[in-house]
């Protein structure tokens, strides 16, 4: 038990919380970016615009089917050779997460819209609404209900996946824990316990939010 008291002294806890802050920061920024890009790509793919939708669909399918870790490596080590600019670890992570999560979200958003019965669109159009009016007033409100639970679980994955950025030495939660038990291997178990608890709290809160939204939306 002594070990636990030593491992959880304030200096270490503060260091862990600083890591958690970076994790949250990266997650929130990536969630915002990827939601916007994902929504645009999802809609573009759904709308079946000649060539454009096909190209978007192709890109989305390729990215969705690659490991995020590969995309992180590529953004940090490969991309500078192509575009000549090197990102710091924070922005490399945010860019990689945004690229990957946008593709995942685009697919969720597209299939959410597709899940709305096509009769709805036909009925609204034949009642004189324009395509965009129908989209905005009829289709999207129904689609959003179906999308919210998978979108929130995707956000939970995103938070967990930020831990992969330890490999490019992003100073997030996982990396800070490794630094601490690297200095004293006796702190290994307390640190992994702390990691499990901290990630669990963040992700579990998100999943409670998802359930809450799901219940409210299905009542409405």
């Amino acid at each position: 038990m002594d070990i636990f008291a030593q491992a959880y002294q304030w200096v270490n806890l503060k260091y862990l919380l600083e890591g958690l802050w970076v994790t949250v920061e990266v997650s929130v920024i990536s969630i915002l970016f990827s939601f916007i890009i994902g929504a645009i790509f999802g809609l573009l793919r759904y709308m079946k615009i000649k060539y454009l939708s096909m190209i978007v669909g192709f890109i989305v399918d390729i990215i969705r089917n690659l490991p995020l870790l590969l995309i992180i490596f590529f953004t940090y080590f490969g991309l500078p050779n192509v575009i000549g600019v090197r990102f710091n670890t924070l922005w490399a992570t945010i860019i990689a997460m945004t690229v990957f999560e946008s593709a995942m979200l685009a697919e969720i958003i597209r299939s959410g819209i597709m899940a709305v019965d096509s009769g709805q669109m036909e009925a609204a159009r034949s009642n004189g609404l324009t395509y965009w009016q129908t989209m905005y007033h009829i289709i999207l409100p129904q689609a959003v209900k179906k999308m919210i639970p998978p979108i929130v679980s995707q956000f939970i994955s995103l938070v967990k996946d930020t831990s992969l950025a330890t490999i490019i030495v992003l100073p997030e939660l996982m990396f800070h824990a490794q630094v601490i038990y690297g200095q004293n291997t006796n702190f290994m178990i307390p640190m992994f316990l702390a990691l499990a608890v901290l990630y669990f709290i963040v992700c579990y809160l998100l999943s409670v939010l998802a359930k809450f939204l799901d219940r409210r939306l299905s009542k409405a």
Partner: protein
Amino acid sequence: MFDIFANYGGQLWSGFGYTLLSSLYALIGSLVVGTIFALFEISPNKVLRVIGHIYVEIFRNIPLLVIAMIFYIVVPQYIAKIDGFTAGTIGLTIYTSAFIAETVRAGIEGVPVGQMEAARSNGMSYGQSMIHIIMPQAIKIVVPPLGNQFINLVKNSSVLAFLAGFDLMYQGNVIASTTFRTTDTYFAVGLLYLIITLPMSYGMRYLEKKWSAERSED
């Protein structure tokens, strides 16, 4: 990119093999473990339900990397020596099984309650109704999302690169750091991942379309 294949093809394909192998072990393992915990979660026994629920919530909400690292560095220190490949595969199995448990549970609950009641009132036992009536219907609901879990599993197996698991990502990094040709190497690695994941992804989309059409015809 093609000369990376020409010069380091052996290394890449060996990584490809380890990625496939780890994914296959974890797939079988997580399917078994996940189904057991799904049955726990819907069991009439309250203790089992709580155990199932706790297992799923814990492992769904902790990063795979944390679980895998526990097996890679904590377990060898205190319990038993295991190599990176094994540690990673165990981590993958546990992590994925939590998601599979949720998918299977949702599938079983997607079968109307009347089916179970009808089977039971026709004299079948709980186990018999589960095997002959509920499961066959649940499978069609469950297979497309399970397929997506397996695609995630293959992608997630790249976590073995952290653990010296000799998988595709690991070999890719070795080649990238010896040749300094990062862009070409990562393209080659990406191509090999897509060979596994893209056909699965399109296959699942096809099944999903086919079976949901069948269901709405009924």
